[in-house]
């Protein structure tokens, strides 16, 4: 089956990111496809490239990137939710005159339309809220 995940909890604040990652690994292990993870609401903080958790804690940002590298899972971040919260890729940083950027590949800033499309083309869309 084709799965999508909608993640709306912030990393290190809520367990939602851990739950979503665990679910993602489990569905892939059962032979399903994970088309994309869509990050919305405070879930956009999962894309913060400057996250620097202590070394004895799971690095959630890297864990998402690994999921992309190993399985080609798209990591789609709602641009409206991200910009408001200070999460900008290089292009948006330049557009808004900011000195640095806080989002990088494999995370992509994209519109809520991608979430609607994900819901339409997947067999299952599973939400993890805060």
């Amino acid at each position, binding site marked *: 089956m084709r799965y999508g995940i909608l993640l709306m909890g912030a990393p290190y604040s809520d367990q939602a990111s851990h739950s979503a990652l665990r679910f993602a690994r489990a569905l892939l292990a059962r032979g399903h496809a994970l088309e994309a993870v869509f990050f919305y609401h405070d879930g956009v903080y999962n894309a913060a490239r400057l996250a620097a958790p202590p070394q004895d804690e799971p690095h959630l940002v890297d864990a998402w990137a690994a999921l992309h590298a190993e399985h080609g899972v798209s990591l789609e971040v709602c641009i409206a939710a991200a910009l408001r919260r200070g999460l900008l890729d290089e292009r948006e940083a330049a557009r808004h005159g900011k000195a640095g950027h806080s989002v990088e590949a494999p995370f992509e800033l994209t519109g*809520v339309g991608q979430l609607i499309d994900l819901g339409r083309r997947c067999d299952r869309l599973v939400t993890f809220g805060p």
Partner: protein
Amino acid sequence: MSHDHDSADGELLVILRHAPHGSSWLREGLDAALVAAAFGQRVSLLFMGEGVMALVDGQEAGPLGQKGTAPTLRMLEMYDIDALWVEREALAARGLDEAALMLAPRCLEAPGIVELIDAHDLVLTF
């Protein structure tokens, strides 16, 4: 507005469970609904629990210019989102009069919520 049962079905049901101003849940849920409608999907909204507060008349912008969601709600018709449902029990629990709400949503008893969900391909909860 049609009251026949067939009009309850659609592609996306967005369940709104949060009040305006206190968090961004309501705004972000409505954004998802508007975008889906702009994509041509048939979208229904269910105001459940505290979400019924979104429909209270007389809302204003908050301090510091916080926008609230009432202006967005007034735009729903432009996006052809006219399947608006409200949980009757949630209104009663708050002493709110259905006749005084914005947008004239249709009231739903608890069993109707299950039917409404069944009638949609995808349900998003906010």
